[in-house]
């Protein structure tokens, strides 16, 4: 009797399931995702019905209220509920995390695949391109793109997305160099399969785990960067985001109003921590060798 074949994904999942910390992190991520989805629903409901959403309702009689049952995280300088703003901030954080990945990962995969598979001139060009992008100081480059495109969510996402594809691109290129002379690739070529089909239908599934790992490790980075951008005033405009809350709370902290800062900071800390720990566990499960390879290039 033979044991049923287990795929890489199934083995990795089994290993992850045994890792209690990783499962807790996954639970935290799922909870935040649910909160973000709810916030998205609230946002669209009030936007489509043209009402002032509760997280924007100003109440001057109730400014700087301390945390209470009615306002579990207190209120801010305009009497708005902090908890509701933290929830909306989760929505922005997830939008940034997902949109930046949708920009950066396709660029990294396509360029890395082309460079690694074709080699020579194509490789020279793409290596030159990512060396150039790598040379421009990260945060300044993001800021410059965000300003040129225009302040707001689009500017932030384009800024982060267009500057953070280099690390993954390098890894994918390295994998394609390894795979391009493997026997299954030679066989496909001998059968007359087109280059693009070989690259994206035959080789890509073998390097897809890199994409998954990269997604979970870049998400917290994107959240932290969004906060800094919003703090510097080039981020999301007119909507509550964790960065704007921290920026608003900066001066109030000195007057003893700590809850706005605490709310935004705590919300951000747990999701970033969960993603960091889960990303590590995922990487160990899918590709243990990557730990140092990544540390050395990224």
């Amino acid at each position, binding site marked *: 009797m033979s044991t049923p074949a287990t795929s890489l994904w199934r083995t990795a999942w089994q290993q992850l399931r045994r890792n209690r910390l990783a499962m807790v992190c996954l639970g935290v991520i799922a909870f935040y995702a649910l909160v973000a989805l709810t916030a998205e629903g609230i946002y669209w409901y009030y936007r489509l019905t043209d009402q002032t959403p509760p997280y924007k309702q100003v109440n001057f009689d109730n400014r700087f209220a301390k945390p209470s049952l009615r306002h579990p995280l207190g209120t801010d300088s305009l009497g708005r509920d902090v908890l509701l703003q933290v929830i909306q901030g989760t929505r922005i954080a997830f939008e940034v995390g997902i949109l930046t990945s949708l920009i950066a990962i396709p660029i990294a995969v396509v360029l890395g695949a082309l460079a690694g598979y074709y080699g020579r001139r194509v490789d020279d060009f793409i290596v*030159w*391109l990512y*060396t*150039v*992008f790598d*040379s*421009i*100081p*990260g*945060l*300044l*480059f993001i*800021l*410059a*793109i965000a*300003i*040129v*495109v225009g302040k707001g969510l689009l500017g932030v996402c384009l800024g982060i997305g267009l500057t953070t594809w280099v690390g993954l691109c390098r890894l994918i290129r390295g994998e394609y160099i390894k795979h391009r002379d493997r026997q299954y690739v030679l066989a496909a070529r001998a059968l007359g399969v087109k280059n693009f089909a070989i690259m994206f239908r035959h080789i890509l599934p073998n390097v897809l785990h890199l994409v998954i790992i990269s997604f979970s490790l870049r998400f*917290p980075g994107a959240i*932290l960067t969004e*906060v*800094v951008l919003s*703090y*510097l*005033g*080039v981020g999301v405009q007119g909507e509550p985001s964790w*960065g704007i809350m*921290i920026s608003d*709370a*900066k001066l109030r*902290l*000195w007057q003893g109003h700590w809850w706005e*800062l605490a709310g935004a*900071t705590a919300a*951000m*800390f747990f999701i*970033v*921590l969960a993603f*960091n*720990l889960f990303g*590590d566990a995922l990487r160990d499960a899918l590709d243990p060798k990557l*730990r*140092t390879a990544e*540390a*050395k290039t990224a």
Partner: protein
Amino acid sequence: MLGYIVRRVLYVIPVVFGVALVTFILFHVVGWNAAAMMLGKHASPEEIAALQKQLGLAGPKWLNWEAAREGPWYRLFDSQWFFYLRQIVTFDFGRSFATNQKISTLILDGILPSLSLTVPIFMIDLVVAIGIALVCAYRRNTWLDRSIVVLAVVGMSVSSLVYILLGQYLLAFRWGLFPIWGYETAKYLVLPVLIGVVSGLGSGVRFYRTVMLDEMYQDYVRTAFAKGNTERRVLFVHVLKNAMIPILTSVVLSIPFLYTGSLLLENFFGIPGLGYLSVEAINSADFPVIKAVVFVGSILYVLATLVTDICYALVDPRIKLR
């Protein structure tokens, strides 16, 4: 070896050219409307045109065919792209829109304060992080090692903004241990340096620990143990020496991160460096200054990678250009 170094030095030229190209596309092709953005809604078309001319944003972008047809042939190069290249070569980036000072002077004035902040952070972080990582490797897989790793990840998950806000509020404002704001004596630098070190420590420790543990399972380490060396000697003499290559890499790769860290620290503590200059320029939509700082920052990074690669070649004879 000499051939490698020459080739590596020459590779700087296409990279700098690429940086110029990317920044040009960003600020002149995508951001062609900068003059209107800077002047606001109520500017007249004449004002916008005048500012565009002053910023080098007027006229054809790449090649000036019209002028070449009318006048002498070299008018072909009378375009924005060649104007920008000339700015780069002469290190004359024009004047700041907000303060009308020469940008090259602003940058040169900002470098020293920036370095006085980032160099100490960098050095202290390096020594402390490697020290802690060595402890982790020495006591690997014990409770001490594990709790340090958890602490490092926790430290990485806190926004640098929060470190700065809390550090400034608690240590300077509430307890009055340090000056809150300003750049006069070395005393003013202690707190920003401290905050910078703490906020960078988590990722540093984790990285160096990975590097050290990676070396621990190499054959030469087993050989060293087999020869009867003590654990301490193997760790501090054999492993540390071999871990120098990845450490050297990270030293260079941290340079841009230091730069971004100083953007916030300089802003919070009023240190008149390049980070402060950039934030001011961003707040006043001062495109020429942003462009120049981005370009100069990239050049510094390119030069830093060049130096490291040459150091590699000197340290490790196996390394050749690809």
